[in-house]
């Protein structure tokens, strides 16, 4: 798998490169700002771009804008955005009109190597990886009224993991239950939220996220 990294801090850039290469990926370019990212994406056609939100020269949301620009220039380019903080507003902008291949994670998650690599793989294959903190806040926002408040605690756990972008198998492993139990929970959640059930993992995640965002 070929990866382009955009991160302004040398230590993190270096660390990310090592981590990804240690897991059998090839880092074709590791750049410092948005313009270089666009150039690298155009030149290398990577399988995924890993981008920091804050990049020079303004250190505001240049990375996010560069990532969105790269996706506009190369439709379907999987992008994993890393940030020191997560904002639902940014998650919304990333997900707007998306058909998958989007990730938005706290930088802290890099410390858990296997989970991070898993997220990178998932996004590169067109899946979704939303930070648990985004999901927690989405659920808080939806908790006071509406169908989400009628879910059982276990169903809410499953919903949260599903919204993060995990597959049934991953959810089962995380909650230490069988895959069949997970399938039962997801079916019940889809009925409660009045969503179209779908076998395709990615479409399912996007439906759930769209539901939580619009409620």
């Amino acid at each position: 798998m070929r990866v382009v990294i955009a991160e302004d801090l040398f230590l993190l850039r270096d660390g990310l490169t090592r981590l990804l290469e240690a897991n059998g990926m090839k880092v074709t370019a590791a750049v410092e700002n948005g313009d270089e990212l666009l150039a690298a994406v155009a030149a290398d056609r990577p399988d995924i771009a890993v981008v920091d939100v804050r990049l020079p020269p303004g250190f505001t949301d240049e990375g996010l804008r560069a990532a969105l620009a790269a996706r506009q220039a190369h439709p379907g380019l999987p992008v994993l955005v890393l940030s020191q903080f997560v904002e639902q507003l940014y998650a919304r902008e990333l997900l707007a009109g998306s058909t998958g291949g989007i990730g938005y994670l706290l930088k802290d998650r890099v410390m858990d190597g296997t989970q991070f690599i898993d997220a990178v793989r998932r996004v590169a294959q067109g899946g979704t990886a939303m930070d648990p903190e985004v999901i927690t806040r989405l659920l808080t926002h939806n908790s006071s009224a509406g169908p989400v408040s009628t879910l059982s605690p276990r169903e809410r756990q499953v919903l949260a993991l599903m919204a993060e972008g995990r597959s049934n198998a991953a959810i089962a492993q995380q909650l230490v239950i069988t895959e069949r139990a997970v399938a039962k929970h997801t079916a019940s959640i889809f009925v409660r939220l009045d969503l179209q059930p779908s076998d395709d993992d990615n479409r399912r995640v996007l439906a759930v996220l769209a539901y939580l965002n619009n409620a």
Partner: protein
Amino acid sequence: MEERAEAMTGVVGGVAWRVGRACVDGVRAWYAVTLAVTGLISLLAGPLLLAAALFGPEDAGPFGPGGPFFLAVPLGPVALWALCWATGGGGRAVGAALFAPGSLAVMATHLYGGAAPGGRSVSLWLAPALLVLGLFGARWIATESRRTVGKWSGRPVPVPYRRPPGAAGPWQRLRAGGWLTDPATWRDAAWALLSGAAVLLTAAVVLFTPIALEVFGRHGPFFPLAIVYGLGLCAAPAAALWAAPPVLRIHERAVRSLLGPSRQARLAHQVSHLARTRADTIDAGAAELRRIERDLHDGAQARLVALGMLLTVAEQLKDDPDALGPLLAEARTSSVKALGELRDLVRGIHPPVLADRGLADAVQATALDLPLPVTFTGVLPGRVPAPVESAAYFAVTELLANVVKHAGASHVWIEIGHSDGLLRISVTDDGRGGADPSRGTGLSGTERRLAAFDGVLAISSPPGGPTIVNLEIPCALSSPKTSSSSGTA
């Protein structure tokens, strides 16, 4: 055809509106004139009576020409007043009751030969009371003028009276000099004199010009006085309606300049306001620094110390892989928690999204995190200056936190905009209402923080809701950054 008819109705409607408007202004001008005359009479009653008692003849003379009907003259202002009051011009019976005796006494003194009925002793006894009443009267006239002008123009006239600081009992008020050393009292008196004199002068000019012309013989043979006054009487209503609006405008300007706070008083008020808000700002800044210091000390710093200790232990145990695993896992948890605490702290100091995107998006981002549905409307065409942006942001988060904690609301509406040099934000919820800034510390704290930027906070929260909070901060928008418009939406 239809268009023409429509235009005609438009014209007729416009004329009717203007005539109606002029009628309203006429009644108002009438009331202002009544106030002015009453003020003058009440202010002069005391001095005139005193002068008459001291320097006038010893005994009351016989009735002059006209006999007892002159007693009706002082009742004129009272009657005018009653008429205005009845026609909706406003007014208070208290005022009439106060001035009636004053005006009666002075007129009687004047007209019946220099001494009030009852002789010198009664006049001397009455005069000081009337002097004081005159000052009270002038103040009352001033207050009433302020009130009416504020009501008519929709823009209140600030009350300029000095208020002694601290608990103001009668004794403190007296020590602070009472009314007599307050310049505003003397401005009130000046107003009563000037406005009354202006009215009397105008009336005299209007009434006596034909007589003067007659006396000096320029039109004498051609314009008998009866005809001139007859025509004048017919034209008077139209003339009054024509003159009322400009007269009212002049009246308003005069009231504002003489009865509003003087320039000095305004500056003094501004200085004390600035001193207070500066002290508040410094206090708030210091408190904020203490909070940050405490958060760092108890949070991230403590976690890093624990992390260091864990690593030391891990170093000693490096030959025992079984014990090492859990230790390292704990170390990682500790570092994750430290990062989380730092993140929360940064959010409390200056939220990243505020720095990135500005006020509107930051408020929207906060709204997204609320546990209830929020409708957000409005855009800002540019960036608000950073300090104002931060103050407004934290004010709104405070308001939203209050809504979540106390209102029991099921929906919140946030509107944000900038017009006429004012940043306006309104937060509305459908909760139980009854929010009172004087009870909770939250709202009054928000109010104080905004005051540092001359911002104001207006709350409407009847019991049972809805609660509407409006923020207004004067500020200019900087032109939008070209980069922020490039397609993130």
